[in-house]
C-alpha cells in the first residue's frame, strides 16, 4: 500500500480534528476551493498536520500548515513525504 494521503483521508481528518464536514468527492472535484471556504481554519489545519505527524511518526514539510487548499496540501504532503520509508 502507498501512503499517499487521499481526499477521503483528508476529509476524515477535517472532521475528527476540526468538526468540519466536507464531502471528499466534492473536494476532489474542486480541490482549489480554499480551506477557509470549507470552514477549516488555520488551527484546524495545524491539528491535521499534528495528527499526520503522530500517525507516520515523522515531521511533515514545514509549510504544510500554511497550505491554502486541499490540492496544495495533498501535493505538498504527497510529494515531499515518502511516508512508507
Amino acid at each position: 500500500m502507498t501512503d499517499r494521503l487521499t481526499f477521503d483521508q483528508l476529509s476524515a481528518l477535517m472532521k475528527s480534528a476540526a468538526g468540519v464536514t466536507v464531502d471528499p468527492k466534492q473536494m476532489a472535484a474542486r480541490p482549489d476551493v480554499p480551506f477557509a471556504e470549507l470552514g477549516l481554519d488555520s488551527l484546524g489545519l495545524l491539528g491535521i498536520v499534528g495528527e499526520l505527524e503522530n500517525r507516520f511518526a515523522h515531521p511533515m514539510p514545514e509549510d504544510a500548515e500554511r497550505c491554502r487548499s486541499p490540492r496544495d496540501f495533498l501535493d505538498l504532503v504527497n510529494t515531499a513525504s515518502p511516508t512508507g520509508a
Partner: protein
Amino acid sequence: MSAGERRRCAVTGIGVVAPNGTGTEPFWKATREGISVLDRVTREGCGQLPLKVAGEVRDFDPGGLVEERFLVQTDRFTHFAMAAADLALEDAGLVPDDDRSPFAVGVVTAAGSGGGEFGQRELQHLWGQGPRHVGPYQSIAWFYAASTGQVSIRGGFKGPCGVVASDEAGGLDALAHAARTLARGTDAVVVGAAEAPLAPYSIVCQLGYEDLSLVPDPDRAYRPFTSRACGFVPAEGGAMLVVEEERTARERGAEVRAVIAGHGATFTGASRWAESRAGLARAIEVALAEAECAPEEIDVVFADALGVPAADRAEALALADALGGHAARTPVTAPKTGTGRAYCGAPVLDTAAAVLSLEHGVVPPTPNVVDVCHDLDVVTGWARPAELRTALVLSRGLMGSNAALVLRRADGSPS
C-alpha cells in the same frame, strides 16, 4: 448631557441555559414556583470527589443547538454561551440583516474559569501521550475569552467585543461594560456569562474554597440567611442578554423589557466577608446614584446570598447601610438557592429573573430557605405578587469583587 440625549441600555432579549431550564419559559416557571433542582453530581469522573451536590444543566443537547465544528473546537462553557446567545437574539428579534452594519453589534462575556473540561482532556493527552498529542484548539478553547470570540465569529458580530474577568461579580460588570459600549455608540451588545465548572479538574480546583458546601443532602446544602448556612453549592449554565440603545431598539420595533439604569463595583479582598459589607454598600450607592434612584424606589433585591454566615451578615448589613430603613421592608430573594451558583453566570441569571419579575409583578421565592436569621424580608416558600418597578441585583465573588446593578421596568423609568 441632558436626559433626552442619554443613550440608555435596554434589555430586549433574554437567553437562559440554567439547571432549572433551557429557555426563558421553563426557567421562569421553575424560578417562580421555587423548584429546587439541586441534586447529586452525576458528571463522569466526579463520583469519588467530596462535592456531592451541584446544579447540573441536564436538559441541554449541544449537538442539537451548536454546529459540529464548534462542538469539537470549544468547551461546554462556550456551547452554553452560544445556545444562550441564540435564544437571546431570537427573543430580541435581532435577526441577521444585510442592512445592519456588522460593526453595530458587539459581544461581551464574563468568565470565572474558562473551559475546564476541554483543558482537562488536552492536559491528559499531554501527560498521557506527550505534547504532540495536544490539539491546537486547546490554545483558544479553555481561555476565558473563548465565548466572546466564538459568539462574535459565529454571529458575524464585529462591533466592540470584550471579556470581563472580575470574579463572580463580573457577570454584572459585563452588563455594565455593555451599557458603556452602547453609550459610546454601538447599537447592540450580546452580553452575559455561562460557566461549566462541573468536570473533575474544575471541581478539584473548587475544593480549596472553604465557602464550598460539601453537604450531601440537596435540601440542606445551600441555605443562605439561615442559622444552618453552610456554604454555597456550585452550578453550571448562565444567561446571555441582548442589550440595545433604547431609541434604536424602539425604532426597529423591538420590545424593551427593562432598562439597565445603574451599576457599581468595588473590591474588598478574598474571603474578607466582614469587609465586603462596606464594599457592597458602596457598590449599591454608586449604582443608585448612576440610576438617579432613591433607596426607597428599590422594590426587590436579588441577593448574592453566599450562604456563609459572615458573608450573609455582611450582605444584610450592606443593604441596611445603603438603603437605610427601607432595607428591612424590601422583599429580598435568592432564586439561586434552587439552582446553585454558576459563578459569573449566577448574577446574569439573577438579572434575567429580575427582568421577568418586573414584567410579571412577582417576586420569586428562595428555595430551601426557612427561618431567616437576619433583619431582611426574604421571600421564602411561595412567589409573592408585588408592584415592581425597580430591582437591585447584587453579586460578590470569592476573590473579593462586589457589584450592584439597578434595573428599571421599561415603562417605569423617569424620563
